[in-house]
């Protein structure tokens, strides 16, 4: 019973236009519309960490928390690239992840949308290009859209996803 009481007392916190973060709902609706049209209502994302420090992953995770609740817009993260419409890649691509990243992309059915999330994925960030790092994701596989930030906040991730989806309409 305690669990039910807690759930009831917590209530629905998923953000609506009345809340200070009104943008979430608004952004979500615009994303939803594109997903309805182009992906039959469901966009599957396979996230690939190609060398990140894990900060980007924390923020991508946050998209699934009850405030943002990404799934309500038709976006969900999948376990296999075989199920994915989009690769969301973070990190500078390390030399040791180069092959794995290319193989993951090859496993996704065409057409694939590749989004590079975070400053490292966008330009190599603090790590740049070295013996161990190949820098930007674009240096290794073709990238359709970039989301800046170190790490990008959940809101900028949403904006970036919208921009990426918008490009293809």
């Amino acid at each position, binding site marked *: 019973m305690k669990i039910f009481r807690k759930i009831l007392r917590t209530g629905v916190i998923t953000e609506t236009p009345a809340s200070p973060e009104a943008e979430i709902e608004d952004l979500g609706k615009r994303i939803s519309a594109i997903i309805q049209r182009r992906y039959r209502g469901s966009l599957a994302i396979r996230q690939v960490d190609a060398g990140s420090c894990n900060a980007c992953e924390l923020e991508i995770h946050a998209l699934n928390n009850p405030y943002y609740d990404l799934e309500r817009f038709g976006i969900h993260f999948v376990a296999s690239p075989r199920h994915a419409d989009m690769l969301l890649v973070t990190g500078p691509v390390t030399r040791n992840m180069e092959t*794995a990243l290319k193989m993951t992309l090859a496993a996704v059915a065409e057409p694939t949308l590749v989004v590079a999330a975070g400053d490292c994925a966008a330009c190599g960030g603090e790590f740049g290009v070295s*013996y161990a790092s190949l820098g930007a994701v674009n240096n290794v596989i073709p990238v359709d859209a970039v989301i800046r930030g170190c790490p990008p906040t959940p809101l900028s991730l949403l904006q970036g996803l919208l921009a990426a989806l918008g490009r293809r309409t």
Partner: protein
Amino acid sequence: MRFALHAQLNTLLTQGGVAAQDFSTEPPSLHIAIAQWKATAKLAREARLRLVALWAAAEDESFTIHAAFAQKDHGYALASTTLDAHANTFPSITPYYVAAARMERVIHDLFGLIPDGHPDTRPWLKHEHWPANAFPLRKSFAAATQLPRVEGRYRFIEAEGDGVYEIPVGPVHAGIIEPGHFRFLAVGEQILNLEERLGYVHKGIEKAMEGRDVPAGARLAARVSGDATVAHSWAYCQAAEQAAGLEIPPRAAALRALLCERERLANHIGDIGAVCNDAAWSFMHMQCQRLREDLARSHLQLFGHRLLMDCIQPGGVTRNVDNDGIRQLLTQTRAVAAEMRELYDTYENHTPIRERVIDSGVVTTADAADIGLLGYAGRSAEQDCDARRDAAYAPYDRHPPRVAVCRGGDVAARLWVRFAEIQDSARLIDTLLRELPDGAVYTGWHTPQDAGCGFAVIESWRGEIVTWLRLTAHGAIDRCHIRDPSMINWLGLELAAREVPVPDFPLNNKSFNCSYSGHDL
């Protein structure tokens, strides 16, 4: 920083017939002839000193190998030895310290120095496609070198017998997590052996540090492991300040601790939810992610970054808090702690989750002591070790933590310690905020005129972080070694997994939540 163990180690070595040259500098260290390096490790082991870290550095004509040891109530001690000129082998101390095994393999990979007597000479960070003669941490190796790819193969441990099969997992895992490879040997559902293969996110951080000035290095330190950005920044800055003989204002030290405890809260809360989620209890997951987000939003508002990245800089912190900020932090921390007490009560009485976590993934007390298991993983197996108390750095010298230790060493024990630490962090935050010293929060960074060295230890939410920094005469970084607690705790997961059926592995993995990035560097 407490170095009482330095004098004790010196006495111990003298009594054991090992002559050490005593450098009572800051930080103090003992220099030992290479012929007696093994004997040093043996004596340290017999005296039950914990091996903290093992690393190498390039010198003009040769290389040095450094070791750090610790013991409860006595703090830390440093020892080093120099290889003979043009020699490329050094005595392995892995026979005495299990935790040295991977550290020596890393030295082998990055310096090309062979640990003589090491039972496992397979490369570790250097994957099979690396040319054999590329040694990035040698001074002659340029950081920008583009290495050709070569053919190679990593030999995993194999097992024979009826019904034994292998499960390869990763490096790309089935979730939003860092990459690494796990090779399971299993019979039916039961794991016989887990072998980790890491190094996938090796970004060359230690090489990238070389030649930077201290403030530029701080940006890199903040990105060693994004989930522990505060603690890594703190360790780096403390080492740099020690090397430069720089004192930071008391208010800056208190604010660093405040940020570090808030980071502990956010990660403990998030991970408790995630562990429960791996046992299909989404109620707890949603509650915890909600609280974690609340913390992140306050951090953005008060400190300009949701994860508190780059808030700690050499010389202090970048942000001050005013009275409104203090009130807001006090109120929120108390509220979050109260909610976590309520959620603990729910967790403790929720049989389906208890069934999954109790007795799952046990690391025995003896094994934990053997590898020097750190953080909540260690404390859940009776390893009473917490750098905040043991190194007694400011402000914890005035505000010591109440270290939560228990027995059991299973998922339930690891969770229990984290629930307890949430309450203690909240208590510390309360005290720190109420007794916040007045004054400046930043002194500025002054590039030191002399070469110097710093060794700092910080208790991150995951466990003890070590940073050793050596500056050149012009204040540039000559060598920076970072030892994330994951360097040791990944060994704990391998031990824990042997008790576990395959479907419970994610639950166990999450209960350790080791860093890939912090380990791979």
